[in-house]
């Protein structure tokens, strides 16, 4: 194991490190990847004899510098991101001193750790083949470096590793299903994850091109019939604070809460939320309760988990589509939701007050504002012009083009200006039906913003100003608001099979998320129930696991029972076999495993006429076989001649002939 590195296994080892590093290509800092790949190239040049490995002093210096680089760029050495980067650069440093099999084995193991780090980071179905390929390569690297054989080819290394992986798969599946899962984390996932989807803020005026992401935000399965499109408002962050340009969430907790009375039967559904890096949990408006990760409902009806959603998470939601508020709005609440920044959007404020003066009620005022949006030439677009700091004034009196965020922001500002409590709700609207998976997929492109106003006697009422500007976007089932002319749908066009393909893929990745990545105690018991193992306890699971493990072990034992065999004899071996055959024909019984020396001694006694020839033949054979003499073709031919001599000498003796015994 500590011998020098042969060329072919070295290449497999380099490939495995490359594979492990490339899994992190979009997460790890680029310089770390650069260092890793540079080390691979360096070592490759070294293995082909074109470059020397760096001297010890330089290597130590480099290692320290890399270590310091990680420490300064991450400010920590713990956590998945920093740990991965550290693995990358330390693996690279190890490559620069890899001279023996033992060193190369370390590099191959680092490659495997890189794969596992990637598994902890992201688990999507799309990445699974990459993980499998990288893990296989790393194990092939281990096979190439760990075996004693010098001549391991890539084919053999991959074959050995692949076979062992296949053998191991049944046990892995068995353990996966039967090893009991505990709920609850021992320690929490370190932060620093990237965040996608909705955020704590909304500044419509700062966006000039709302790029549409077709990524799935979450998937929903309804118990019973799904509510119609117009009722599938998925409530997310509620924004209260406005500085004239940006809407923000109200920080801090409020004890006040307006108690809603349900007017319809509860709607139940199960949500598979993709990781967001934030705390929001989405549910149909208005959310009654969410059962899943530990969460709380804030005063404004928004549900947040205690910990950021860093991995795909499933939860069960209960909602009421129609509600009524009996009480009155508290003073604090009214103050919070009627507050506007001073000296901002003054023209809009003036217009709102003028309209309110003409209206008989808050409700009628709201209708007048929506009518205004409908009739004053507002246009819905995903590429709106940028707005100045008086963003609402700029929108209403100047640009008149925007998307849902613009209209929600303007509407709430106008309401508040007239003293009507109002707030901006962000979330998603709709969801497309996936017939393959039997669920609704809600995509990032279906993100939406709407408004709520407080009406005396009715409580909080949902108003969607975008519907006034672009009503068709609510009616249309697919791509309701943002992606009417989205690139993906335009591409898919009428090709039904393409849509089916997309649905199938999405269903598969949902199955993967739900059944494999998020396999927990509940899904485990559910699966076992389907196998008829209802109410199985830990002891039963342990027994099943043990039984399955023993079966697997027996199968493994039997499959590896190939009888031992000698490989095909080499040229020298074949000459010896011919000698054995000859002795057999001359009447000398030879045991299967008799040693060459004892055969020769018995043969010499048995055939005294050729004793000298047999002895020298056997001596020569032993010299070639066991000595340090390489059996050149010349030597082998001499041995063959000698064998023929013995054959003739003994044949002559048997036939009582004297002539031709000795070659000329």
């Amino acid at each position, binding site marked *: 194991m500590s011998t020098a590195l042969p060329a072919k296994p070295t290449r497999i080892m380099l490939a495995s490190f490359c594979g492990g590093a490339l899994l992190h290509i979009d997460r790890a800092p680029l310089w770390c990847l650069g260092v890793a790949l540079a080390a691979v190239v360096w070592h490759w040049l070294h293995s082909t004899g074109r470059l020397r490995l760096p001297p010890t002093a330089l290597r130590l210096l480099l290692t320290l510098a890399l270590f310091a680089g990680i420490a300064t760029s991450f400010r920590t050495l713990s956590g998945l991101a920093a740990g991965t980067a550290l693995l990358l650069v330390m693996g690279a440093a190890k490559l620069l001193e890899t001279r023996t099999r033992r060193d190369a084995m370390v590099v191959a193991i680092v490659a495997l750790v890189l794969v596992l780090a990637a598994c902890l980071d992201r688990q999507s179905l799309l990445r699974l083949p990459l993980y499998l390929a990288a893990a296989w390569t790393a194990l092939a690297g281990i096979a190439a470096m760990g075996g*004693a054989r010098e001549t391991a080819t890539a084919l053999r290394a991959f074959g050995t590793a692949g076979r062992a992986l296949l053998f191991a798969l049944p046990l892995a599946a068995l353990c996966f299903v039967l090893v009991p899962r505990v709920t609850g984390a021992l320690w929490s996932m370190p932060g620093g994850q990237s965040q996608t989807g909705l955020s704590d803020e909304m500044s419509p005026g700062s966006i000039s091109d709302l790029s549409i992401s077709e990524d799935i935000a979450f998937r929903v399965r309804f118990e019973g019939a799904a509510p119609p499109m117009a009722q599938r408002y998925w409530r997310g962050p509620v924004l209260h604070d406005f500085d004239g340009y940006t809407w923000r969430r109200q920080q801090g907790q409020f004890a006040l809460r307006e108690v809603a009375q349900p007017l319809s039967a509860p709607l139940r559904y199960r949500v598979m939320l993709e990781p967001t890096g934030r705390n929001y949990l989405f549910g149909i408006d208005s959310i009654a309760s969410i059962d899943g990760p530990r969460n709380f409902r804030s005063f404004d009806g928004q549900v947040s988990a205690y910990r950021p959603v860093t991995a795909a998470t499933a939860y069960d939601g209960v909602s009421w589509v129609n509600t009524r508020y009996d009480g009155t709005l508290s003073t604090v609440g009214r103050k919070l939701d009627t507050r506007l920044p001073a000296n901002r959007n003054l023209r809009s404020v003036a217009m709102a007050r003028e309209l309110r003066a003409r209206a008989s009620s808050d409700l009628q005022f709201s209708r007048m504002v929506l009518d205004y949006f409908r009739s004053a030439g507002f246009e819905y677009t995903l590429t709106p012009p940028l707005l100045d700091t008086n963003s609402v004034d700029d929108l209403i009196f100047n640009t008149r083009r925007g998307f849902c965020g613009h209209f929600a922001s303007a509407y709430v500002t106008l309401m508040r200006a007239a003293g009507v409590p109002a707030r901006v709700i962000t979330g998603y609207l709709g969801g497309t039906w996936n017939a393959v998976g039997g669920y609704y997929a809600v995509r990032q492109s279906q993100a939406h913003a709407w408004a709520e106003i407080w009406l005396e006697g009715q409580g909080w009422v949902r108003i969607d100003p975008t519907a006034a500007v672009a009503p068709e976007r609510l009616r249309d089932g697919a791509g309701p608001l943002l992606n009417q002319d989205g690139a993906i749908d335009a591409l898919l066009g009428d090709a039904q099979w393409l849509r089916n393909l997309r649905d199938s893929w999405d269903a598969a990745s949902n199955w993967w998320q739900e059944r494999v990545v998020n396999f927990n105690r509940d899904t485990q018991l559910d699966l076992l129930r389907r196998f008829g193992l209802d109410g199985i306890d830990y002891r039963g699971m342990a027994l099943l696991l043990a039984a399955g493990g023993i079966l697997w072990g027996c199968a493994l034992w039997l499959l590896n029972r190939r009888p031992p065999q000698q490989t095909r004899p080499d040229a020298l071996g074949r000459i010896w076999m011919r000698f054995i055959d000859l002795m057999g024909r001359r009447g000398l019984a030879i045991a299967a495993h008799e040693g060459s020396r004892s055969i020769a001694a018995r043969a010499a006694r048995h055939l005294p006429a050729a004793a*000298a020839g047999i002895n020298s033949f056997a001596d020569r054979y032993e010299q070639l076989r066991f000595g340090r003499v390489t059996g050149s073709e010349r030597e082998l031919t001499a041995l063959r001649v000698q064998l023929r001599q013995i054959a003739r000498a003994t044949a002559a003796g048997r036939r009582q002939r004297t002539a031709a015994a000795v070659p000329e």
Partner: protein
Amino acid sequence: MAQGKLTSGLRNGVRNWALRRQGADRLPLTLQARRVYIVPTSAGWTFALLILVTFVAGMNYGNGLAMLFSFWLTGFALVAMVQTQRNLAGTQLLDASALPAFAGAAVAIALSVATRGAAADLSLSAEDARMPAADPAEIPADILHLQITARRRGPWRAPLLRLTSTAPFGLFRTWTWLRLDVATLVYPQLAGNLPVPETAGEETGTGYMTTGQDELAWLRDFRDGDSPRQVAWKAYARGAPLLVREYRGHAAASRDLDFSALTGLDVEARLSQLACWCVEAAARGERWTLRLPGSAALAGAGPHHLQQCLQQLALHDHHGTAS
């Protein structure tokens, strides 16, 4: 130091226990599983730690993929363990031999095996003197080689051997101890620079020699100065190299190599000198007579004669102690 003593004591204890369990080795034999031992290598322990960390992390974060990988790697390690163990268990040891060597040089042990996988996955090592195995490129497929330095002249018995394998992944090391009944002779060290004694005139043959001028003894490689009449031309015509026929009773000058004539040297130095002369005489194709006190004089020529002379030198005045 104390710890080193403790571990080596422990190791010896384990080894002796194992040797008592397995009894004597008589070839050919099939290695039974009960005498094949297996432990993880350092890489194997690292692998185990990796599996554990993945499992705990997967459990903690509810990450099914990490769990799946940890189970899969566990299965992989178990497969690796079985495969490694079966490199040895069930392997047949067919034949072992050791070639004689001159003292100071290495005795070459060769062990012929039949394995499930490839014999190249196995390696042979001696417990006491760890010698590098022969260059793998030169090893015939089923022969394991080991070279052990021969220290003293005389009969030589193989020390306790260890047959090891870490293939196919290097995560486990499996081994068995072999107490093979392999013996050979260690010839005297080739040393001495005294001139060869002059030829002692016509030699008429002694008890060893058989009669008959033209009895073919064997064929040897052609050397400069050989008569063309002695070349085996028929063999040459069939593609063999130039070979020369040697005959017994071939009349030639014979050198007299006498132990008693070497005065002023101790016993070992004399034997070394005699061995040297024998080898040189054989290389020149001469006849010689070896005279050792207490043994019959050996007269003759050729490699077989040389071997007999060296055997006599190796065993001279030997009281049966092994090297």
